[in-house]
């Protein structure tokens, strides 16, 4: 992969993110609802007080002026301040993003660990009862609502069996100083192995809930592309050379079969990094999804437009990484 190409791709993400941010800004302003009305709730408030708050938050300015304020802040690297929480948006996102990244990595890991072996075996034994079980199992996995599945997992593992905690990232009474925001890293940095174990246990159920659904999608992709590759001439050649069957499958076939799987994983990564609001709510996981959805309900425009911009960057980034990995798996694919 040439460096200039890579740079070109990275730079091309900037106008995309900017365009998305402007669209998000405009769409949000057309949404019914006034953030000041929502924030003040049910109070005796005079019209003067309402107007004063609106003008302080620049909400009384013309749309273009507001957009100008947003863009000029953006150029200075300032995402603005939350209307409701009075905190810099960069801080709010920075506080929640590590939790979401941690869950994303765990989810993708769970997904790959389940989907790869299942998909491969299912392709190799295609048509067998095992294959048919996998296929129908995957269908169940894809159609399962995360909300329901998450609650079932909590009831089973946390309430009935009591082997895992219901929710949160760490036990209520545990003290861990925040350095990176990644609970698994912070507990290790603090040298607290017990807390590390507790944090790991907290990660299991949400990662399984999201991971099983992802695995269902991925396993089907792995199976299909594996079936296709296994019928290719070079695989027959490898077999004719007298290589061991599993050597053929894992060394020769899998490498090429992984390319479609990689695409799916990349997309899933981009999606998960936005934060899954439902799973974050069910497992009381303080991630980006909850921040964004609650900000939408509060009409906290400043937070939402920054988050949407981040989403765009994440997708572009995930795609870039996937493309780079393609060239590693198959050098004939150019970036």
């Amino acid at each position, binding site marked *: 992969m040439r460096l200039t190409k890579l740079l070109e791709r990275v730079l091309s993400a900037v106008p995309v993110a900017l365009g998305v941010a402007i669209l998000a800004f405009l769409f949000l302003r057309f949404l019914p609802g006034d953030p000041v009305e929502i924030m003040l709730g049910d*109070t*005796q408030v005079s019209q003067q*007080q309402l107007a004063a708050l609106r003008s*302080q938050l620049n909400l009384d300015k013309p749309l273009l002026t507001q957009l100008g304020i947003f863009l000029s802040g953006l150029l200075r690297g300032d995402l603005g301040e939350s209307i409701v929480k009075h905190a810099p948006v960069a801080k709010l996102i920075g506080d929640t993003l590590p939790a979401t990244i941690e869950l994303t990595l765990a989810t993708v890991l769970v997904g790959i660990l389940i989907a790869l072996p299942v998909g491969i075996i299912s392709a190799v034994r295609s048509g067998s009862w095992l294959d048919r079980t996998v296929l129908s199992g995957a269908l169940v996995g894809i159609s399962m609502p995360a909300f329901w599945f998450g609650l079932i997992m*909590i009831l089973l593992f946390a309430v009935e069996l009591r082997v895992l905690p219901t929710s*949160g990232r760490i036990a209520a009474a545990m003290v861990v100083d925040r350095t990176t925001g990644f609970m698994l890293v912070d507990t290790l940095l603090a040298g607290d192995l017990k807390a590390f174990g507790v944090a790991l246990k907290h990660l299991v159920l949400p990662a399984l809930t999201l991971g099983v659904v992802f695995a269902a999608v991925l396993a089907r992709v792995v199976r299909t592309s594996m079936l296709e590759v296994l019928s290719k001439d070079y695989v027959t050649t490898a077999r004719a050379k007298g290589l061991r069957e599993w050597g053929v499958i894992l060394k020769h076939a899998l490498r090429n079969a992984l390319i479609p799987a990689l695409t799916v994983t990349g997309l899933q990564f981009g999606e998960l990094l936005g934060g899954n609001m439902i799973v974050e709510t069910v497992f009381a996981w303080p991630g980006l999804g*909850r921040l964004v959805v609650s900000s939408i309900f509060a009409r906290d425009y400043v937070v939402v437009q920054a988050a949407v911009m981040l989403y765009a960057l994440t997708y572009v980034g995930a795609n870039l990484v996937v493309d780079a990995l393609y060239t590693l798996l198959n050098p004939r694919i150019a970036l």
Partner: protein
Amino acid sequence: MHRIKWLLLSLVALVLMSANAEKLTFVLDVTENRSDEGQAIVAQLQAIGIDASLRVWQTTVLRDEMLAGTRAASTSDWGSAYFDPFDLAIPKLRTKDRGNYSFYSNAAVDEAFRVASTSIDDATREQAYLTAQRQIFADAPLVFGYVLQNIEAASDSVQGWEPAADNSENFSRVSVIGSDTLVIGMRVNAVVTLDPAMYRDRDTEAVLRNIFDALTIPTAEGQVQPHLATAWRVIDPLTYEFDLRSGVTFSNGEPLDADDVVFTFERILTEGAIDGATSPRAGLLGPIDHVEKVDATTVRFVYKETFPQELVLQALTHFQIVPKDYLTEVGVAAFTAKPIGSGPFVYARGALDSQVVLEANPTHWNGAPKLKSVVWQMMPEASTRIAALLAGEVQVIQAVPPDLVERIASVPGVAVHTALGTRSYQIELNNAAAPFDDTRVRQALNYAIDWDSILKNIYRGYADRLSTVFLPSGFGYAEDLAPYPYDPNKAKELLRQAGYETN
């Protein structure tokens, strides 16, 4: 031949349409959380021949639509922070007030409200509220609804705790058998801030009330008691004077005196006082002019217009006193990150969107709390809160949905606790446009809905009927005013008088 057939068909259609046009026809707009209730209501209305249909909205969007006057009938709810109709019935029903989504206007009611919110004589205020209630009841500007109880649940190991009517959880006297830590499962995504000047929601207030003290404190039933203020008196109709408790210190050792109280209210009342931002809390204090220091332990609240003493005392329960010296020294951002108060607990650590950990303040003027620490755990999903309570991870949970109460009631070791609600739920009717500009039609709807069965079946009995939008827990409530009874025949009679056809 074809032409005659079409003519006949359109004639039949015309006859059918004119028959329908005589029925009362409207759309009931409901917020998502009340769609079950909406379905039941629509079914009841249809049964007596009202052509009602249902539409479900996101709360904020529906409110905008109501304010624009484009909806005929919509569900709404409104909460009260005072145990007084001052911030519920008045904003909802005074002409052109902020919560008057039904565009109701009655000069007699407006006048009664003016007297009730400006008179400094309690008997006069009470009389004014009673007058207003009877007039509102007769005018039926809304379909009057109900007040939901505040349902929480706790492990039996929790001692000395009861939920409070306004979510003012104060854990200074609570203990837990076999543990020195209490964990509370909160209903929200996040606490808004730890700066007592910058929030408006109750959940944030519940946490802050344990870190800070206020001049007055409410009992679980809403009676005001002395707290940092030990006594108060009326100096003149516009001035109230408060004696402050002496010997109180903030948890950093800084003594709490009149300067801190004045500073606390100045940063709320002055525009742009909080690093350029304005506090959203000024409205809670009524028509106040300023707060001034008399001496180290005496302050005065000076009003622009007369404002009843009871309302001042109620309002003060919501204002947490902050340390002037510490806050000015470290600045707003550092203070919000590590707040210092004089309350029974001290902020230890946490993140606003996951958990806030408080530790006991051993030198609190009212005695050290029994617990060593209190942890507020954000758990926005009700089923997760219940699971955490059953798994023993938390000892108290907020906001149990009525349909999940049984899940807890059947388990030994945990119990459901209820407190009075402070939020009125109703159906707004657009009084400014047909068909609800006719009092008879509005009254008919009040007779046509069987609230008792709805409250029993959908809210499992954890709700109480309201005769108007005045709460039984509030000042000046008309005890003798019974809610509109369920009387479909009376409803049909009124509709027929108003010129509509019924079943």
